[in-house]
């Protein structure tokens, strides 16, 4: 008896919960409805405000013609190569900065000065030095990833308790083993956060670079759409950029939570 009663209450609660969860959809749906209504009213020209259904059609068109996927593939390839370069450089430099007094004394001041320069501001300079080809975009991504990763790595390693190093010395661990088995695992949570911050920034800078100078990629697709006054293409591009950024960020967040479940991360 009691168990059925509690089951009924339980199911009612879960139904209530599900209804409550649906309320999150109210405002996006309202926005969509307002957009559709205003677009249908005909007060604004189709070049300025296009009905959501048309944007959806354009999305499907671009998806089927392969244009969207191709653009995304170009952008993601640039992001990946720049990310690998910047992240490995940042890891090595950050570790050196934290572990070696010499490196710190010679490099830290310049590192902290250079990290003040926003990546966006470097776009004109990189274009002049490297031209508008791939090199400039990949290096820009590298720069955007390198600094947050290096900073997070060096601060993460500096925060490792001294006792870890003392035990390692006691066991006479060789240097590579000290790095691979002690230092990087112990500093992994902040490093992963640094990687995530770097990836988010890199995505933003890459899109900006593609908007300014590119012959391929999502940014270029948007810029072309703007020049041809195709607001539907622009909107599809903007939404895709947002989606990709969201997926990248949340998959790294998920990885953080999975890897460090034992560590009770404070959100």
């Amino acid at each position: 008896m009691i168990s059925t009663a509690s089951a009924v209450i339980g199911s009612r609660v879960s139904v209530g919960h599900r209804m409550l969860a649906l309320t999150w959809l109210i405002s996006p749906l309202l926005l969509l409805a307002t957009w559709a209504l205003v677009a249908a009213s005909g007060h604004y020209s189709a070049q300025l405000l296009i009905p959501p259904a048309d944007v959806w059609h354009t999305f499907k068109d671009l998806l089927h013609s392969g244009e969207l996927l191709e653009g995304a593939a170009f952008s993601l390839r640039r992001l990946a190569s720049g990310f690998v370069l910047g992240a490995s450089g940042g890891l090595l430099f950050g570790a050196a900065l934290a572990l070696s007094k010499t490196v710190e004394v010679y490099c830290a001041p310049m590192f902290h000065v250079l990290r003040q320069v926003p990546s966006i501001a470097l776009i004109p300079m990189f274009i002049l030095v490297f031209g508008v080809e791939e090199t400039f975009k990949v290096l820009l991504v590298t720069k955007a990833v390198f600094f947050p990763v290096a900073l997070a790595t060096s601060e993460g390693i500096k925060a490792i308790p001294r006792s870890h190093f003392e035990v390692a010395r006691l066991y006479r661990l060789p240097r590579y083993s000290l790095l691979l088995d002690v230092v990087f695992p112990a500093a992994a949570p902040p490093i992963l956060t640094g990687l995530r911050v770097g990836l988010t920034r890199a995505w933003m800078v890459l899109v900006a670079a593609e908007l300014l100078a590119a012959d391929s990629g999502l940014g270029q697709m948007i810029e072309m759409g703007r020049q041809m006054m195709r607001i539907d293409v622009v909107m599809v591009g903007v939404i895709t950029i947002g989606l990709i950024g969201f997926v990248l960020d949340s998959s790294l967040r998920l990885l953080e939570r999975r890897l460090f479940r034992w560590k009770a991360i404070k959100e």
Partner: protein
Amino acid sequence: MNNLLSHARRARGLLLPALLVAAWEVASHQGASQAYAFVPLSVIGQGLTELIRNGDLLISTLASLQRTCIGLLIGVIAGLLVGAAMALSAIAERLLAPLYHMLRQVPILGLIPLIALWFGSQEGAKLLIVSLAAFYPMTLNTFEGFTHIDRRYREVARVLEWNTWQVFTQVLLPGALRSIANGILHALAFAWVSSVGSELFLSTGSGLGNLMMNAEAGARMEIVVIGVVCIGLMGYAMNQLFSRLTRHLLRWRDI
């Protein structure tokens, strides 16, 4: 002795930058193709005096700075309102949070083409970009500031039977102040970067970004370098100024 040692240590920190500048100078004398990218230091010096003398540097910096300040003000006020509303009212959170988090996913500079189509490329469009850039971190930090207030303080207020206004001004606002100040610091950084960034894309008007884009079109590397240095310095100076100011103003909060 100690003093001398720290001086020596600081001097060693200057070694690497000095080497790099020297390498730059050497590279600039390696023939025409190199001099295009690596301009000699003397040319950078000339460019700097030229920019200072004709007032370009001052006008551009002030234009970027002015947009940053106005955009920051709009973004901070809007962020305070939205963040506080989402934190203090469950209904407002239900309605605003989904929209906020959806919009936030798009990198701010990625929105520029859309904003340019709707609002043109005048000052208003740039101001909107800067305000949005300041609005995101401000909302997030305000929301966190108001939601992370110790329950005990609210309970004290309930025991004392304070009205809503008293609770807000005596409990909630002081409790959220540190997080709000942090939000303004973030908003400042984002506003400055997006102010300069918006100028790279929307080429009307003046600003440090415009100065750099024009210099890039004319292949005048020395002006680009000066622009980069100026942007970095200004960003650093504003950050230092504001964090010192908050530390001074909020010193009573230190527990």
